[in-house]
């Protein structure tokens, strides 16, 4: 089994939706390993609000596909306890906004247990959740909160942008012996991409160059990746070749991939949907300014969400999140154009 980019044209590659790719990953891991099971609200007969768990109940039964009440803190804690005692739970929290209810279990328990037990205990648990704006769901169902988890020692943070990566990363996350928070994006579920027929995984900690280029490096993840790629096409029409890097996992972060690219392009733009203040983009910027200071031809540009709860009205909502035009402008600014 190896990483297969699943680029179109490769043999045995199908077009799958992001949510179908996730479903396949779960199904394959549930088949492969009896210690894998899934807990979440409405994930059984209903197949999950975003249809990621469709059909799993039928195949694996109610002992392994477990519908939970609205008791997120405790069913996450149950995941932690099951993981400590030999299982590999995949816990689903419907919205990343609701992870506000489970932070003690994720941060003070799951992420610290290995360390606090002197290395004797492990917590091989995956917390699947979903974030981002774009569906008119307003302030409590639209946040991008990866920065919180990025700040926590002992936790891995995965944010796939394509069907291919989603599948390969989820499989790796499930096999990982430490807790992983796996954040999907509500606008990506219905996007399609090539996914190999054969089994594959994507290693945690390995970023991906989604588009090569020599003029400027753009780092983006999750739903900002397709937006950046589309902006990059427009820039290419103006003879600006952007290199687009998707770290895919924020922890571990493929720092080298970013630094090497920046050393080549000498210009960096980071695009995140999350609020700018205290976001992951700031941290990446702080790393790059420290480790590639002499290569930078201009200040690093951060394009980020606005400093506000997400509004309900669709136009206001859009105004809060980086759009193609914002990305293009930032690239122009960083290139002194």
């Amino acid at each position, binding site marked *: 089994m190896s990483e297969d980019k699943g680029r179109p044209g490769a043999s045995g590659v199908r077009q799958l939706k992001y949510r179908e790719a996730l479903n396949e990953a779960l199904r394959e891991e549930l088949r492969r390993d009896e210690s894998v099971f899934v807990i979440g*609200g409405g994930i059984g*007969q209903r197949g999950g609000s975003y249809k990621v768990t469709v059909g799993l109940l039928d195949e694996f039964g109610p002992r392994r596909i477990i519908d939970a*009440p*609205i*008791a997120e803190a405790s069913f996450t804690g149950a995941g932690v306890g099951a993981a400590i005692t030999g299982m590999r739970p995949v816990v689903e929290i419907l919205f990343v906004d609701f992870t506000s209810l489970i932070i003690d279990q994720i941060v003070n328990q799951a992420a610290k247990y290995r360390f606090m037990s002197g290395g004797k205990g492990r917590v091989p648990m995956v917390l699947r959740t979903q974030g981002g704006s774009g569906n008119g769901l307003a*302030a*409590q169902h639209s946040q991008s909160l990866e920065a919180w988890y990025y700040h926590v020692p002992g936790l891995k943070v995965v944010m796939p942008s394509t069907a291919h990566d989603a599948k390969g990363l989820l499989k790796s996350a499930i096999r990982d012996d430490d807790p992983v928070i796996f954040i999907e994006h509500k606008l990506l579920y219905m996007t399609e991409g090539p996914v190999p027929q054969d089994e594959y995984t994507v290693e945690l900690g390995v970023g991906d160059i989604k588009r090569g280029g020599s003029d400027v490096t753009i780092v983006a993840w999750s739903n900002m990746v397709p937006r950046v790629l589309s902006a990059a096409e427009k820039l290419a029409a103006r003879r600006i070749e952007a290199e687009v890097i998707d770290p895919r996992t924020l922890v571990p972060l493929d720092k080298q991939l970013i630094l090497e690219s920046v050393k080549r392009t000498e210009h960096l733009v980071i695009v995140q949907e999350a609020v700018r203040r205290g976001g992951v983009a700031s941290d990446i910027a702080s790393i790059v300014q420290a480790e590639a200071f002499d290569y930078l031809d201009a200040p690093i540009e951060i394009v980020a969400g606005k400093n*506000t709860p997400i509004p*309900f*009205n669709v136009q206001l909502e859009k105004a809060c999140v980086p759009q193609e035009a914002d990305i293009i402008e930032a690239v122009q600014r960083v290139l002194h154009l």
Partner: protein
Amino acid sequence: MYSRQFLEELYRTVYTIRVFETECIKLYRQGLIIGYFHPYLGEEAIATGVCAALRKDDYIVSTHRGHGHCIARGGELKKMVAEVLGREAGYCRGRGGSMHIADLKTGNIGANGIVGAGIPIGVGAGLGIYVRGGDQVVAIFFSDGACNNGVFAESLNLAAIWDLPVVFVLENNQYAVSSPIEEMSRIPDLHRRAEGYGVAAYAVDGNDVLAVYEKTTEAIEACRSGKGPVMVEAKTYRHGGHHVNDPGLYMPEERLEYYKARDPVKLAREHLAAQGQCSECDITTIEQQVLEAMEQAVEYAKDCPAPSVEEFLKEVEQN
């Protein structure tokens, strides 16, 4: 015996909620409303009966299924429709939407997108009353799903030990999205959980507005006189899925039929006709008035401008 005027008011409210939800669902299907929209259809008697038992200066806390509570407290249809259409004239200036309508003028602290999160907030309103030494009460609405969240138990206990003037109103519609309460609790009569916290609890037919009114009045009396919190469990059933886009296929047909036969609108109408001795013709007049008010609200809201993006961005600058 109740006055005709009182029964008219109850019916007008129940019917207004019915009409509001029905018309909004149409707007939703037309693509004019987006996001989550959770209708209160089938549960109208609860908000109506509870709010009729409250005083003007009391508070309520609402839920994601909150339109009924807002209306029953005297919320304005125009501002509600404008809000769910995302207009500047809406209750939250188009920034909140269906799940976040609040109306402090009518003591409505607000709906909430986080199930259960309103419960401690309501306890806090009660705590404020206690600290100030007033005699208001707070009615906290929540449904069966919220009872499985820890804040429910914590909040019951806080209200109990601090003797707060809080009425916990459990709208047991027997589902949390598609999860039936029988699968999510060994004891589906959730008010029994109150006993363990030393809180008096009452069960009532949630489809009968008068029954709800009476039981809540009794409950509030105890609670306003300083004896601390009470709980009222009102059993009911949704008339459809969890939100507009959920067909609710998991709801057994006979069960739905049973509850539809005990439609809260129908029961309230019967009370008005029988006890209120109101003629069919007069009832139809009320209904006509409600329909017109709603039509006007929709017209009004449709004409209202959306919030200005520029102004919004200026506000954000100040954050």
